[in-house]
């Protein structure tokens, strides 16, 4: 019960964040006249269809124009274009929520659809694949290396990691990606410089998968490279703090094997603060993913952002901003759940 209450509270607060972002987006769009432009585009698109349909039945050109004018006025009233922008705020929020943003100006989905929903949603899996894979790899390396370093504090490798972790704060993911392309793709020609598959893509499920992995290697390596240092450092420091506590000494005094002390008495206790740091690092990794996809021409949401900016596709940018926030908040909620599971104290305070 207490668990559900705590999580409910967190979920509510995150939904609040989502709502604030939505409001920010919609008010900005309305106040700058962007939403007028977008709705006009939607109306024009519907009118094109209507004109074609009506041209079949109404032969008299004057009557056709008259009917079309009426239809247009109806549509404009329906979308609220005849009223000031703030009166249609709720409708616009609903529109963004359901990604019902009409047609993109120039961008098309892989099979040629111009609906914003189609274009944006088909990119989501590619982004999630990139971010989660690199996150898992980073986590595994970070936990393993951090635990290792915590046992040998002050050695050269420990100090080196601390410095590298600090340095990675100054290394943007996209720049690391460019360096990797220059060295591994342009000079040594080991990896492809971008894209999803070779052209033409190889036949057969396994070969195709291997090809995909080969193309994903550099972007994933980039994302791991820029975040693994900070992860390792956080894990190491947290473990170190915990290792100095009395219960660890007590566990050792009881003669427990070192591996067990590490797993049950240090790692387990240090897990919540480590999770907190991961939650805080999430914003950075979302931003990193946007830029990394751009560098590697990886057809995810980040690359779509770049293309949408290039072609000034307003509706796509609005949809992406919303989706990225949604993705971030979902990820954040998952981590909050994890946190509550890891730290029993949170459950008790809630009661």
């Amino acid at each position: 019960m207490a668990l559900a209450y705590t999580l409910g509270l967190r979920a509510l607060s995150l939904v609040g964040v989502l709502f604030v972002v939505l409001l920010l987006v919609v008010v900005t769009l309305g106040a700058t006249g962007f939403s007028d432009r977008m709705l006009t585009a939607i109306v024009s698109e519907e009118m094109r269809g209507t004109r074609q349909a009506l041209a079949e039945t109404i032969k008299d050109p004057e009557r056709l124009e008259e009917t079309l004018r009426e239809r247009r006025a109806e549509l404009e009233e329906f979308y609220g274009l005849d009223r000031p922008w703030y009166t249609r705020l709720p409708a616009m929020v609903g529109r963004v929520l359901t990604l019902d943003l009409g047609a993109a100006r120039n961008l098309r989905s892989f099979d040629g659809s111009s609906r914003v929903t189609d274009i944006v949603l088909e990119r989501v899996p590619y982004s999630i694949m990139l971010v989660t894979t690199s996150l898992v790899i980073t986590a595994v390396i970070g936990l393993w290396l951090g635990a290792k370093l915590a046992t040998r504090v002050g050695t050269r490798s420990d100090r080196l990691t601390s410095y590298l972790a600090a340095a990675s704060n100054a290394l943007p993911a996209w720049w690391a990606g460019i360096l990797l392309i220059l060295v591994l793709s342009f000079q040594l020609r080991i990896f492809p410089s971008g894209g999803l598959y070779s052209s033409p893509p190889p036949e057969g499920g396994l070969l195709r998968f291997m090809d995909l992995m080969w193309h994903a290697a550099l972007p994933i390596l980039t994302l791991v490279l820029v975040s693994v240092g900070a992860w390792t450092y956080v894990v190491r420091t947290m473990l170190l703090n915990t290792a100095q506590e009395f219960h660890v000494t007590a566990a050792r005094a009881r003669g427990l094997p070192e591996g067990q002390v590490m797993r049950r008495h240090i790692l387990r206790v240090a897990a919540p603060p480590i999770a907190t740091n991961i939650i805080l690092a999430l914003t950075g990794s979302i931003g990193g993913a946007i830029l990394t996809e751009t560098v590697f021409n990886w057809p995810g949401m980040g690359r779509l952002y770049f293309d949408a900016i290039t072609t000034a596709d307003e509706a796509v940018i609005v949809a992406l901003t919303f989706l990225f926030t949604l993705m971030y908040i979902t990820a954040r909620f998952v981590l909050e759940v994890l946190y509550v599971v890891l730290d029993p104290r949170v459950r008790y305070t809630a009661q």
Partner: protein
Amino acid sequence: MRPGEALRVVLRSGSGRLGMGLLAVLVLVSVLVPFFYPLDFGLRFWNNPIAWADNPKAAPPAWTNLLGDTAPRHRVFDAEQPTGTIDAGSARIRQFAFTFSHQTVEPPTFLSVSIGAVTFHERPPILSMTLTRPDGRSATLLQEAVRGLRPDETSPVTRFADEPRRVYLTGDAAALGAAADFLLREFDLRTSGTELQGRLEEVLFSMPTGEGVDSLAPLNGEYTATIRVITYDPRDSVQSVRFVAAGGVYGLMGTDTQGRDLATGLLFGFPVALLIGVLTSVAATILGTFFGILSGFSGGRTDTIIQRVSDVMTNIPLLPILIFLIFVLGQKLWLVMTILVIFGWPGLTIILRSMVLQVRSGQLVEATQALGASRWRIMFRHVFFQMAPFIVAQMIFFTPAAILAEAGLSFLGLGDPSLPTWGQILEQGFRTGAIFIGYWWWILPPGILIVITAMTFVLLALAMEPVLNPRLRERAA
């Protein structure tokens, strides 16, 4: 700890010394650049293709020649006074002779002639340009008359005053025709101007060794370009003349595909980057400190509101919102900085509030209260000063984040076009496909500068740690 003492602690560590050294260089360059650059550099020069027309396109830095590549040097000759004058009756021939030594296999990448502000009274002057080769042969590549008086004009007339008359010989049909004539006359080679398209320098700076224009041996030695301006009235004048034999390498940092001198753009990026980082972090820190102390001290509803707002703000992913707002509201640097400040302060506020709560319940504050000190005095003298080193460290730590956020935004193509930044230079290189062609001099330096600048502040933050954590200080001493 007093500031001087803190500085000494920072300077004791290697990272502190390195960080301070780098910071000194950054500040020095940033202070010097505004003296030598016009403030509208971005619009008037950087994003104005005319300003860079006479530079070679996508040329690597000049020092790459030291590594064994043999590309010709970039040569620009400007003159205001003629090197010789010949009077023939009423006509006066002003000669501008420019001699240069050509010692590389590769010919110049292009040739161009520019003539500025010609004033004449009756007959329009005639312009010509002749290239004389080391073997004594010469070709007249340009011969044209300045446009005469129009019916609505009265003598004297000045032409090319706003923009010089520039002839890009390499792509000029008349120059190519003249080169074809030259080959026929001197070497009995029959070609045509269209056949020589894009090969003007190649044939002019070489000797034919066989039948066609495909077997050529480079001809090295002294070349002279003579530009003649013939005027017919003693009062006529010509203001300036320029001849360019474009090189295959250029300057300290090379050029991009528009011929822009990358060194100037990169130098201009110094003050801009520092401005973004420092102004943003200072503003965000001031706001964060103010609200943090206020929140921790006042409690009650003020506290709740500030904490709620901060909580929401820190939960918003920055880059997507930044992209969205800049796209909708316009690509302005001050807007980027404002948004970074608005989303930057809440993190500090949350941390400071918890610190204030700790300090507030301490005996020091209690004692000061008992002495009758006012709330503001306690807040400022005792709470703020205790946390000052931490606040400074946070400010330093936020600086690279701001610089990197702007660079990332520019990299997506949302940079402010009136102020070139390193991120924008990188973005243009990336968009042009410079990484896939191997234009490393366009891609590496801006990125390295971004990383070094961000690293400067990271190193300083690292060196601040013993100031914050007295236990570490003892170990260091």
